[in-house]
């Protein structure tokens, strides 16, 4: 029997996330691990190198809270293309402090995770020929093609100390199942030394085992499974709740005003013990606005040997 890895969120973050670590929080628009990010803020982690393809609001919040020394990313705006003003203030005016940035394209960031997951030094891609990105970021390099073609750009492996991802469901051992947009969840989990997964539901072993192709991250790659319903709000969990677009639109004004942003952090992160309290503070009506109707997948037959 495998090891049961169910933990509380504060326990899992406290156990695995330390000051100065390289921490990846992935989820491409979908399943962004906001609850875990807030717990990292609440625990006062410092000097993190934060990795996220699309930093989104969670990066703006963690940076504003003083957790992050460096950001490794590929898109410096929110999902619907609004600015992340804390990120911009740091980069444009070092206000209130500078933020180190390491920058790639989406495929470059994803390739970095793939290389690390596969234990390789680099990942090759056709992007960047003629771009200023390799000049800005000398870690984007070239290799010679031993088959006689032109040199090709490569990005180096990125192995986070800890990865946190959110998913629809997992069993108690950490077999993680996801549907909808999968983003870099599988790759960043395998890339990392330690993996924390927050989920909408912890399900019976049989639920996972009734559909093994749905497992995106097998248990052997997972260190902690944490039950955090609503843990992706204001982003979404396909089939569970929709994106809170009002929240995203409101963020621009909050993010623009450093004082407002800090009050927001106080009210929505520091003054709340956990995600359950956050959802309560959000209120039933607001939650109802983002519920979704049912649209079931249908079933496939895996079969059972007759003998």
């Amino acid at each position, binding site marked *: 029997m495998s090891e049961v890895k169910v933990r509380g969120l504060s326990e899992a973050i406290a156990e695995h996330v330390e000051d100065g670590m390289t921490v990846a929080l992935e989820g*491409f628009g979908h399943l962004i691990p906001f609850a875990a990010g807030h717990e990292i803020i609440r625990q006062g982690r410092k000097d993190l190198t934060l990795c996220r393809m699309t930093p989104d609001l969670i990066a703006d919040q963690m940076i504003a809270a003083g957790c992050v020394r460096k950001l490794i990313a590929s898109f410096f705006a929110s999902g619907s293309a609004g600015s992340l003003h804390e990120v*911009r203030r740091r980069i444009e005016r070092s206000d209130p402090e500078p933020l180190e940035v390491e920058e790639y*394209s989406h495929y470059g960031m994803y390739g970095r995770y793939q290389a690390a997951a596969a234990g390789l030094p680099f990942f090759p891609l056709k992007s960047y*020929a003629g771009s*200023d990105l390799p000049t800005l970021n000398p870690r984007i390099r070239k290799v010679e093609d031993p088959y006689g073609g032109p040199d090709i750009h490569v990005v180096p492996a990125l192995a986070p100390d800890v990865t946190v991802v959110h998913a629809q469901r997992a069993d108690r051992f950490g077999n993680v199942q996801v549907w909808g947009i999968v983003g870099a969840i599988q790759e960043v989990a395998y890339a990392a030394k330690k993996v924390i997964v927050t989920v909408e539901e912890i399900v019976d072993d049989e639920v996972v085992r009734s559909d093994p192709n749905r497992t995106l991250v097998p248990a052997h790659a997972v260190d902690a499974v944490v039950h955090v319903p609503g843990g992706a709000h204001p982003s979404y969990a396909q089939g569970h709740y929709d994106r809170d677009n009002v929240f995203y639109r409101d963020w621009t004004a909050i993010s623009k005003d450093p004082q407002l942003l800090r009050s927001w952090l106080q009210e929505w992160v520091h003054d709340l013990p956990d995600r359950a309290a956050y959802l309560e503070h959000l209120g039933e009506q607001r939650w109802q606005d983002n519920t*979704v109707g049912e649209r079931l997948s249908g079933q496939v037959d895996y079969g059972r040997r007759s003998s």
Partner: protein
Amino acid sequence: MITRTNELGPAGITISSTEFLATVAARELAGKHRVFAGVGLPTLAVDLAMRTVAPDIQLVYESGVCGAHPEGMAEGIADSVLVSGAEAVVNMQALFGYVLQGGHVDVGFLGAAQVDRWGSLNTSFIGDWESPTVRLPGSGGAADIVPNARECITVLRRHDPGAFPAALDFCTSPSPVRARDLDPRAVPPGHGVSTVITPLAVLRRPDRFGELQLAQVHPGVQIDQVREATGWDLAVAADVVETPWPTEEDVRLLREEIDTVRLYLR
């Protein structure tokens, strides 16, 4: 800076700049198949095109959705509405590696802060890289899309020498011309930016290694006006035509069927 706001169309309808640009962009998609669509203006344009000039467009999103059939208007490239009822949701290696880099995308549809003479794009910085005046969103998928899509269409909401400079402040997504100049053997497979749609005009780059030419001016815009608003000596095609106005049906579709909540149609 000149933008096209609230102009009167031929049927006496007041047309916003966004409606105008979306209609012009939609028409550029006639005959195209697989379109890699971003959010905002491209969302409107693609939807309008599917209802008018290009019914068989297949929508591909960098989030991994292929063959989307959204029941409502998407508020982002990772919107749940793109997933439900889609033909496929694939992982990012399949999407960026196989679909895009493997050459299955006909048209990439992108915005930019700056475009240069050869169709190279800047979406990263205005000003100095070290301490920029404006930190823009960066590449996202753009530096992957421009080299690998068969061609790219870019829409800008302004047309002035700041947006069309002689030299980019930063080149995020290079034209094949720029790639060739740096290494003649490492030219990406795509055409690069073929079409730039602005509030004044449509610029086209028919030759993969050629420069943008003024091909089309919007109603009431003079050729010289476009050249003055451009930061280099803009070439002019032999046969510059005038952009037709959106039809009443275009405007009706945009307002009453596509963006009923006026999310993008500001």
